[in-house]
């Protein structure tokens, strides 16, 4: 297992291709390239036919105010995603610790809470934070009406991710810790959690992608995130397709960067515990 870092999933699952397979792969690659090019051509043609390529749908991208406005939205998205991600990490960890604590009522409670947040769509949680505090006379800022539900939804998933990590730590590590006289708490803190977190870093960061995507329902609470600001521009320029295309690309770039970061972090930390 010591070469796990360089061993890709494809290498692990399939044998090395022989000459006939290599030829088949080349033919397949050529065919799919042609198909992709044709599809792109068809899309561009359809845009042309329906007039979506007309200058009035694209010219406002030349004004820097457009980008400033979208940039402000991007900052809003990043602020919510990072805050929600941080809250979800802490809450997810606490839920997992509660669930694995061995204290029956606490474990049951944490389990119910985890499953609830994992099971309920985040949009529903957002509606909850939009309506319920207001009815109780509580005035939550839009930022928190968005951040809290997104964080809660993610915390349920992260609790399960952490639990999977803890379960992946070999039993012998715990036994060795107990055998030198560490108590349960220190065994968890010093031995189990540090290893569990290293195991699940890629999953944790992947979950951040979900958090970023969850923030796009900000319009429900009128929070100015990237999506909400794009909607404002769509209304004022009457340009739906071009704007959605551009912000789709921005979201893809954000999440691509997050994924790249996860691979980087996993390589940096993962190698230390390869057995």
């Amino acid at each position: 297992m010591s070469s796990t870092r360089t061993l890709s999933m494809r290498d692990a699952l399939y044998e090395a291709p022989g000459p006939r397979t290599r030829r088949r792969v080349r033919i397949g690659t050529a065919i799919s390239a042609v198909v992709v090019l044709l599809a792109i051509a068809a899309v561009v043609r359809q845009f042309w036919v329906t007039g979506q390529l007309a200058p009035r749908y694209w010219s406002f991208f030349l004004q820097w105010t457009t980008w400033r406005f979208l940039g402000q939205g991007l900052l809003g998205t990043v602020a919510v995603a990072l805050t929600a991600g941080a809250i979800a990490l802490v809450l997810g960890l606490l839920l997992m610790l509660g669930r694995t604590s061995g204290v029956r009522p606490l474990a049951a409670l944490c389990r119910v809470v985890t499953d609830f947040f994992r099971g309920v769509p985040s949009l529903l949680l957002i509606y909850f934070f939009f309506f319920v505090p207001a009815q109780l006379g509580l005035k939550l800022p839009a930022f928190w009406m968005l951040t809290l539900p997104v964080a809660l939804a993610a915390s349920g998933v992260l609790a399960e991710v952490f639990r999977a990590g803890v379960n992946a730590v070999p039993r012998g590590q715990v036994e060795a810790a107990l055998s030198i006289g560490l108590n349960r708490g220190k065994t968890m803190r010093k031995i189990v959690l540090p290893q569990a977190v290293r195991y699940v870093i890629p999953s944790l960061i992947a979950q951040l992608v979900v958090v970023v995507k969850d923030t796009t329902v900000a319009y429900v609470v009128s929070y100015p995130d990237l999506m909400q600001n794009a909607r404002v521009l769509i209304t004022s320029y009457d340009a739906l397709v071009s704007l959605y295309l551009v912000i789709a690309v921005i979201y893809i770039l954000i999440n691509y960067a997050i994924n790249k970061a996860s691979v980087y972090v996993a390589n940096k930390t993962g190698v230390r515990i390869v057995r």
Partner: protein
Amino acid sequence: MSQEHAGEKNVPVIELRHVDKHYGDLHVLRDVSLSVARGEVVVIIGPSGSGKSTLCRTINRLETIDSGEILIEGEPLPQEGRELARMRSELGMVFQQFNLFAHMSVLDNVTLGPREVLGQQKEEAERYALELLGRVGVAEQAHKVPAQLSGGQQQRAAIARSLAMRPKAMLFDEPTSALDPEMINEVLDVMVELARGGMTMIVVTHEMGFARRVADRVVFMADGQIVEEGVPDAFFDHPKSQRARDFLDSIKGH
């Protein structure tokens, strides 16, 4: 050291009285009684599934027992909490799979217990740790992580980790069974040194040469029972029970 105080000489360091344990329908320990005196080296042998590993693990409560008693220096083995943790810290345990903490350097593996459990300062713990790592011959590896060490080096580091707690006795649960043949002796040599130094030891092993050379007493287990025990030469040359004769016949030859 404090455990050398006069007057306690006659109390066994480890004593099991009529210990029974089941795994479901499987009766893994049947009325096992065993007493280990200070400085004694007891080697437990027997076919796989005979309960010898389980026996070893019950002594620091990594396995619970159904009935019977386990006494450490005359005191009942605590069931839980701080008392159990303290008792475990006084019994070294060496595992078949080494179980070095995978995310820490070898040095940190050895100093963790002294610092977290015994409350030693970093410098003090590291000084003793390096001395121990030197004694088991892996001082060069102190700053590597376990995955960078060979199996034999890992097991010797694991022994150092246990010794750092200055234990009253050491439990070895098949310490060489996961090792490549050429690494077995380097681990056994460390164990021989320990035994010569007067350490009280219980060793579960398949290494008959080690048992003959080092053991004060050999305990033969089969089907969860202690079938026979005696001094090594008597046991290996003239086993009394048919089970022991069959077992010894099955492993010799070649």
